[in-house]
């Protein structure tokens, strides 16, 4: 244990003196919260403004005065479409639907015919979707009103047309709807666990090889596992500090979010932050061990960075797994590091009940995997090809 402690103290001092590294890590972790929440808040209030405006863009409103009248009567704002609206729709500078009544709109309407109205939009612009839906709904309600008037004129009750009325009952709570968008919050927290202590993890492994200090270090009467555990403890302390700072940043930013919808959507009080920490810390302990193990293969800092980047790529991809699988919260998720953490964090954000199994199982998986990484790394340090080849 004396050896572990000596390694821990030395590596901690070394890491603290690496001012540039920790300044960057600190800045990034403190900026993560405000950045994520400002983006979310802007996104949501952008949606709200457009939907609230109930704006309908019409090409040549003079072709369809009846429609324009109706829209103005129910409080929608009618805007004439710019002549280059097709290009602007594609490029996203116009994020709405353009309603295009034909030139003989009024004549055909008067004759009681069915008139086709084109509604042009680009579905690939995500922000446009709710606005487009509003425009389409307004045109359809015009259709309904006109149809009802025609039936009444012929003495038929419009109720006959309504054989079935659909009542939408959305089971998702307000929080659950918000959490779809809030995927970015646990994802950002997970990324901080992966990247937060990366430079320290590389410095205590590949850095030792690059400096040529590994060979003399191993000539000391200390078992390789003591070196590995002492170094790992420093990386864990470092990444724990960064994860906690990031979470504090999340809470602090939430206080400054003025958007009421977002405030209603996000459950991120002290209780949630505590759960986030409980979920993330074992994961970041695993990331520390895994990054160290892989970085040990690097003869230099640079080489190690290349190897380690594959890990962060794998974690980023694994974040997509639940998105592509239609089954939410499958039991196996909890057994897979990063997928398990994401799915539990999403539960927390959605305000769902999180049981002991949701916290314990992924944590135990992470800690067991971390132990395996450390064991493998201690074996690596006894390998001559690792000890004696330098960058």
């Amino acid at each position, binding site marked *: 244990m*004396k050896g572990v402690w*000596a390694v821990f*103290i030395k590596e901690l001092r070394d890491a603290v003196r690496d001012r540039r590294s920790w300044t960057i890590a600190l800045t990034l972790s403190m900026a993560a919260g405000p950045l994520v929440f400002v983006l979310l808040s802007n996104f949501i209030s952008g949606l709200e403004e457009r939907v609230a405006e109930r704006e309908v863009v019409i090409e040549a409103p003079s072709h369809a005065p009846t429609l324009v009248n109706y829209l103005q009567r129910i409080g929608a704002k009618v805007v004439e479409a710019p002549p280059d609206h097709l290009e602007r729709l594609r490029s996203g500078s116009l994020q709405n639907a353009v309603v295009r009544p034909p030139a003989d709109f009024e004549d055909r309407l008067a004759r009681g015919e069915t008139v086709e109205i084109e509604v042009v939009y680009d579905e690939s612009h995500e922000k446009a979707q709710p606005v487009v839906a509003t425009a389409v709904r307004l045109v359809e309600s015009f259709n309904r009103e006109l149809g009802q008037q025609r039936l009444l004129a012929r003495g038929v009750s419009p109720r006959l047309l309504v054989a079935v009325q659909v009542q939408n009952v959305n089971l998702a709570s307000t929080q659950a709807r918000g959490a779809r968008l809030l995927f970015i919050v646990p994802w950002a927290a997970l990324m901080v666990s992966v990247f937060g202590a990366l430079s320290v993890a590389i410095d205590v492994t590949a850095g030792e090889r690059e*400096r040529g200090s*590994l060979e*003399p270090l*191993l*000539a*000391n009467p200390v*078992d390789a596992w003591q070196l590995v555990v002492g170094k790992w403890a420093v990386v864990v302390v470092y990444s724990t500090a960064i994860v906690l700072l990031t979470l504090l940043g999340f809470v602090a930013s939430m206080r400054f979010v003025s958007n009421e919808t977002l405030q209603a959507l996000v459950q991120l009080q002290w209780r949630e932050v505590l759960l986030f920490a409980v979920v993330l810390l074992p994961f970041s302990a695993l990331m520390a061990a895994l990054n160290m193990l892989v970085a040990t293969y690097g003869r230099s800092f640079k080489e190690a960075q290349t190897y380690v980047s594959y890990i962060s790529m794998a974690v980023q991809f694994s974040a997509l797994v639940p998105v592509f699988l239609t089954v939410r919260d499958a039991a196996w998720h909890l057994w897979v590091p990063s997928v398990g953490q994401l799915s539990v964090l999403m539960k927390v954000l959605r305000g769902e009940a999180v049981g002991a199994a949701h916290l314990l199982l992924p944590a135990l998986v992470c800690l067991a995997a971390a132990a395996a990484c450390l064991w493998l790394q201690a074996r690596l340090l006894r390998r001559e090809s690792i000890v004696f080849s330098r960058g």
Partner: protein
Amino acid sequence: MIEADALGKQFVARRGRGREVLTAVADVSFRAADGAVTALLGPNGAGKTTTLRILATLMRPDSGTARVGGIDVTADPMAVRAQLGVLSDARGLYTRLSARENIAYYADLHGVAAADRESRLAEMAQLLDMDHLLDRRTEGFSTGERMKVALARALIHDPQHLVLDEPTLGLDVMSTRALRKLLLHLRSRGKCIVFSTHIMQEVEALSDSIVVVAHGRTLAAGSAAELRHAGGGGSLEDAFVALTAASEAAA
């Protein structure tokens, strides 16, 4: 006392698509007594560094045995390390730590008490003339300054045995003198010192006993005078050339 008995070590190297077995050490045997400085003299690639790595328990020999203070290096490497100071081929320092902190780290790994550490550090700083270096961070140290720190950290647990790989490599005259002063001091205290070199001139100045190694084999051992005599009475360099030529003819 350090003893090497018929040491052998092979490496597998890649050659094109295939593999090739290289013999770094074929048959090295020698005895280094306490209270003496023993030099391993040989050309580059003779197997000196590999031999010293085996003694320092950093590599396992494929054949033969080595004992440091009577303890087999493969049987109990921890006990060997505890009584051995090593200046290895790689002698990297931690550049964000001061010289004193670099040395204190190794003292902690050896479990040296703080009081012993400070008194030994003061003694070595004086012998190596490095007092002014102690509290500077080692970033940007010269080769000589780095060697002094590396040597001090290898000696901080006051080991009975000392193994130095090319200690004079890249040193200027003043640093070489400081090194010699330290080695003589350690010898006078009865320590067993083994160092490797390929430089003929420093061998006579630094060592009591010389082991000539080439192509992974021990060719001869003895004092400088004995080797000169065996080589036909010329200079040590003539003796060395004659010995290695004979071994090449035999191989």
